[in-house]
């Protein structure tokens, strides 16, 4: 009778191989879950969502523009509200700065609403419509990361926004 069972060494080798495969698989699963979370955060970046919301509110609530230009310009966008306040949005040293002046002689309320901004353009293609183009630096999308460490390197992202001015009263734009 020549029966041959499994030796302890063979069993250990099989267990070791299985352990390595499970370890690699588990790492991939964990990494994929991290990437999914990072993608969700990148798509709905809370800071950019807030800034977009702020700009949407400012432009839609404006009654008029201080000056109009149908071609893209980098100058500050100056909005006049129905109660006479002036809201200015401009790019200053890589920061998108919002300044609001409530009346003549009163100091403007200046706030940085977005940092890492590399481009700010706006235009007024037709009366009552404002196009905004903002370029800013963000963490690249997970699949474009050259490193598995989130935050490695930055890439430019561009937001194109169009809003209609509605604060002039009269109701015809609502």
């Amino acid at each position, binding site marked *: 009778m020549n029966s041959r069972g499994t030796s302890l060494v063979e069993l250990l080798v099989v267990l070791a191989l299985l352990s390595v495969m499970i370890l690699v698989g588990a790492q991939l699963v964990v990494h994929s*879950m991290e*990437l999914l979370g990072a993608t969700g955060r990148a798509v709905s970046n809370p800071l950019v969502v807030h800034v977009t919301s702020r700009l949407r509110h400012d432009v839609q609530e404006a009654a008029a523009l201080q000056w109009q230009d149908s071609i893209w310009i980098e100058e500050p966008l100056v909005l006049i509200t129905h109660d006479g306040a002036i809201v200015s949005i401009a790019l200053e040293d890589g920061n998108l700065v919002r300044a609001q002046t409530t009346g003549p002689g009163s100091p403007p309320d200046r706030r940085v609403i977005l940092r890492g901004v590399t481009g700010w353009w706006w235009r007024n293609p037709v009366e009552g419509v404002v196009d905004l183009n903002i370029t800013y630096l963000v963490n690249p999308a*997970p699949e474009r990361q050259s490193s598995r460490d989130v935050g490695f390197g930055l890439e430019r992202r561009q937001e194109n*926004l169009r809003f209609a001015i509605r604060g002039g009263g009269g109701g015809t734009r609502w």
Partner: protein
Amino acid sequence: MAVVVAAGFLDAHMSAARRLEARSDLVRVVETVLESVRGGALPMVSGEVDLTDEFQPLSSIRVRTKVVVTTKSPQGLFSVRVEARAMVRSEDMVVTITTQVWKP
């Protein structure tokens, strides 16, 4: 088997990421069309809309946009339905917003 399962997770991740990006783009393009109609930059008529100059999607999708305008009462009030559609990994994604707009 673990590697196969992990590959499935990774594929699901890629698919979910594409859908998230595409949905974000579709919502933005619908807003752009609505604001264009509201502001008078687009005519208040039904049809396909080409937004090549006004909107560039963040993801690599081709967006098709359609506007359906119906008259409402009182005169000058319109119901505007904007539909943005894109194919994302062989799945048809649609975002639709209907609102009422006064003729600019």
